[in-house]
């Protein structure tokens, strides 16, 4: 007769297992209830430990802790720590015993254990925070229980969604509703670009794009439109120019977070800067488009360079690649030089000036009349040359600014002399040259050699002197207009002197 849950047979079996064979039935009968009592006691303690570990599932570790609390040696080898599946007792039903349980102890091949790759280290504990409720209302964020699930499952049936845990992120499909007005606006603007990109109304549209605050919903559509148009209409110059203007206006708009779409916008802009061909006619002033786009790139870098550290380096890398690739056409080189120059004097110093000497050797071949018979090619070469001079000039100016006193009264004198040059361009080229030389030597500039070189080559060649002078004038004008812009001096005042 069994009075306790623990059968007296169980006691006998355990006694045998520890080597007591002659246990009298009375003893086992008395022991059985006591064993049950002790078991209950330990489980009770274990539950306490479980509660203090803030758990609702009892683990083998809790039982061990309870045993230690009772000054009993814990049972080793049953730890169910971590995520491992806890030990499961199996019923030996097959052997014909319905109350016999065993632990499934698999045979493990030692070789397999050794050869097995190291398991992944468990992820370290970390902490995240989110708003469970804001003023009593639960926000619909993935960290919270989805609201639909709440509605369906009652309090008692929470397990339904608990099982999913965080593995399933329920994201409602976003239905973007564009208002009728915005749709019309978008249609109008795109039509204008295609048809009448020179009209006054287009200028109005650009202004609106640059200043209106409610355009954010349209930004993805515009970026898509820009990318589309640029890729399709590389030979339609006026359209490209219009599209770039749109891009510029969007960038200027302070209410638009254009940076989210920059990655879509940048390829089109870079294309307009360094594409092989922009427009299909010779008359198309693609140089102007490249200049415009170069400024656009500089604007982007200035505005978002701080937030996205890799933006400018990436652009610079692209441009330098185009610049240093001799297989690329000269307009591409022009675009990249302009782009780099627009990024500032330090970029020029870093990326253009060191490469100037070898580049000029190549460029010289294209510029000389006897070497390059193609008029267009030669023109392009001179264009590139002009861009290089301008870049170098900007760089020089930047250095000049760092030497205090050079730009104040004495610089006035230089302008004066330059003014004289202006009045007598053709006759006083020699003076102009000597002026430049003194100018250059006066500023102790590391790149002097380079710039000198680039100036001397054509001088020594003595070919097409007039053209060169024109270019020199052009480049010096560039430098000085820039100086004037920077110093905010009225142009007429300068010219008057």
């Amino acid at each position, binding site marked *: 007769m069994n*009075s306790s849950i623990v059968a007296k047979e169980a006691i006998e079996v355990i006694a045998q297992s520890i080597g007591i064979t002659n246990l009298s039935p009375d003893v086992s009968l008395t022991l059985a209830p006591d064993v049950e009592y002790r078991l209950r006691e330990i489980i009770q303690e274990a539950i306490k430990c479980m509660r*203090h*570990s803030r758990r609702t599932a009892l683990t083998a570790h809790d039982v061990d802790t309870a045993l230690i609390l009772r000054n009993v040696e814990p049972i080793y080898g049953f730890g169910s720590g971590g995520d491992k599946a806890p030990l499961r007792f199996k019923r030996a039903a097959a052997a014909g015993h319905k109350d016999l349980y065993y632990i499934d102890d698999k045979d493990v091949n030692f070789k397999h254990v050794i050869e097995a790759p190291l398991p992944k280290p*468990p992820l370290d504990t*970390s902490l995240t925070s989110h708003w469970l*409720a804001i003023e009593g209302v639960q926000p619909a964020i993935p960290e*919270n229980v989805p609201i639909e699930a709440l509605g369906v499952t009652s309090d008692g049936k929470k397990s339904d969604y608990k099982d999913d845990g965080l593995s399933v992120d329920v994201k409602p499909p976003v239905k973007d509703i564009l208002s009728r007005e915005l749709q019309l606006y978008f249609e109008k603007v795109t039509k204008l670009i295609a048809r009448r990109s020179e009209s006054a109304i287009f200028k109005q549209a650009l202004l609106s794009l640059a200043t209106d605050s409610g355009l954010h919903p349209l930004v993805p559509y515009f970026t898509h439109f820009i990318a589309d148009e640029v890729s399709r209409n590389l030979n339609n110059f006026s359209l490209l120019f219009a599209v770039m203007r749109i891009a510029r206006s969007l960038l200027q708009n302070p209410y638009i977070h254009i940076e989210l779409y920059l990655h879509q916008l940048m390829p089109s802009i870079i294309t307009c800067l360094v594409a092989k061909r922009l427009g299909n006619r010779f008359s198309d002033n693609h140089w102007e488009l490249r200049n415009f786009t170069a400024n656009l790139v500089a604007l982007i870098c200035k505005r978002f360079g701080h937030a*996205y550290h890799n933006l400018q380096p990436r652009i610079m890398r692209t441009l330098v690649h185009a610049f240093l690739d001799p297989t690329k056409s000269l307009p591409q080189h022009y675009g990249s030089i302009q782009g780099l120059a627009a990024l500032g004097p330090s970029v020029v110093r870093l990326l253009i000036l060191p490469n100037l000497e070898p580049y000029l050797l190549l460029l010289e071949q294209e510029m000389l009349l006897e070497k390059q018979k193609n008029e267009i090619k030669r023109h392009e070469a001179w264009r590139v040359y002009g861009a290089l001079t301008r870049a170098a000039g900007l760089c020089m100016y930047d250095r000049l600014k760092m030497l205090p006193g050079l730009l104040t009264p004495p610089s006035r004198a230089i302008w004066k002399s330059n003014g004289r040059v202006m009045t007598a361009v053709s006759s006083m080229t020699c003076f102009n040259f000597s002026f430049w030389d003194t100018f250059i030597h006066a500023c102790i500039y590391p790149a002097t050699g380079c710039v000198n070189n680039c100036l001397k080559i054509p001088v020594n060649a003595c070919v097409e002197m007039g053209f060169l002078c024109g270019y020199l004038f052009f480049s010096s004008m560039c430098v000085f207009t820039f100086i004037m812009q920077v110093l905010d001096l009225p142009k007429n005042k300068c010219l008057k002197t």
Partner: protein
Amino acid sequence: MDEEAVVKFVETYLKKKGFKQAELAFHEEIQQQNNSNNAVNIHSDPDLSTLLHSLSQPEDSPARYQDEYSKLRTWADSSLDLYKHELLRVLYPVFVHCYMDIVAQGHIQDARNFFNSFHEDHETMHLRDLQKLEGVLSPSHLEEMEFAHTLRQSKVNIKICQYSEELMMQYLRKSKSTIILGIVNEHINFQVSPGQPISISDDPDAVTLIGSSQDAANQINKKEIHWGLLEDSLEERFEKTGGFLSDSEKTEGETKEGDMDENKKRSMDGGKQASIKKSKKDKAASATAKAVRLEAHTVPAAPRVKPELPLPVMQAEVEQSILEDLRNRVQLSSATLPSVSFYTFINTHNSLNCSSISHDGSLVAGGFSDSSLKVWDMAKLGQQAGNSILQDENDAAPSEHVSGPNSGKRSYTLFQGHSGPVHSASFSPLGDFVLSSSADTTVRLWSTELNANLVCYKGHNYPVWDVQFSPMGHYFASASHDRTARIWSVDRIQPLRIMAGHLSDVDCVQWHANCNYIATGSSDKTVRLWDVQSGECVRIFIGHRSMILSLAMSPDGRYMASGDEDGTIMMWDLSSGRCISPLMGHHSCVWSLAFSCESSLLASGSADCTVKLWDVTTSTKPAKKEENKSGNTHRMRLLKTLPTKSTPVSTLRFSRRNLLFAAGALSKSQ
């Protein structure tokens, strides 16, 4: 009945009673009678024969217990509805003592049978007790088990009306249920009240069997306690300045303040106070703040008490920051619920034992079963997250700015020192220290500024389940498996007070807002309130049906909330020691409770993955009006249930600005 039978009865009776000499004498007499053959005429006395009959039966046979108990049960069940619930109330103690009697006589099998046939009646109310009793199977267990031992020695109070009592006694006598009559005499103390029976709404202590006798508890609860708030606390000063501004002109307010300052004897930092107050006034002048504060003042202000402990002096800049928080406090009520910021621990592998949040929510500590304590600085965490996002974008860029102060990889500060699972952690009010208690029987003090262990407090003999810093810092209380709670100060390695009295583990501890009292919750299902100065128990709160896991004291000092293993939360009035209302709603352990700063809301966090917000004001006000009524039917209103995504809520904390912080470990298995 023939003569031989009578002789036999007498014989067995004598044998049973152990009257050996009498038995011998009886035998001799019988033999003499047989010799002389003059028989006694027993038949002439039928009463004597029945008496002998009843006495001769093996008196305490288990079958009789079963028989009499089942009869009583059916009788009580079929009695008049009006008296039924009172009569049923008697059944549980009778059942328990019947069972223990059977066990004491050594009839294990019968005890088991008896238990199995009747325990279902009481399971809804007394599941935990029954589970304990079920294991008791031998007389030695009865002696050993404290619960059973105390039950045997103490009497149960049962409130019952006069008529019910008469009915019951009459029935017991008539049916000759002598065993049950004996039990009732021995273990039940009827508190007979004249007139109508008590209404059915359960008076919880009427049905609870506790170890300590009820009378003692009542006696203790008569002691006076000063539940008022500390005088001259920052809050008080802040409120007063606000109040002055609202009802009087500035200058007047200043003169009054001047008086006040004189009254206060803290002359040492009087100058500082004045300057603080001026700055305070400038900012606190917003109209909305005034309106809200006026509203708040309609509640009678809590009385003020002096601190019984020497309290640390607060530094001026700390005072400033607290005042800043008070100014920015959101007033919460049933209409304006708090915002809840939830900190989720991930990848804990079920090893998170406890968590704690500092008062401003900037630090979060987690105690783990691998003996470690980890502290996260939420401000730094935000920065690092930002950095990582950047790094994701510039994949090629070198990562120079990852490293925190301690390590390149970890997002937390690891405190190692304990040699057992960490069961509790508590931040000091300023967040510069953190205390942790562990199963290695020690409490350790860590500095969050130095990231080092400062002190190890050894004193408890068993695992320390809980540790709590006092609201003013410097002092702390610990609760342990060794059935004591202890008060310590951070600068001494010996405890200042030892609170002994609980009959089982002390599971949780909490300070009263005025630092003069601590409350302890225990596995003996009671909550006790102790006077810190004298170390005496001043209140015993009886009513929970399972182990108490969490405690919270209202900042206004009036109320206490306690949460237990079954998901029941009870609101207690400290001055009367009575339960205001039980809060039903959770269906698993209530790990954490927190009152909002103006004591208008109670938040509870549970293992059922919810945070619930309860309205304190609606429940307590009517209760106060009808205090004399015995049964108050007012239930506290559940305002909101906020479910989490499979994250049991282990900690809650209202910041000084009334933002609610909650923390828990994501667990997929549960």
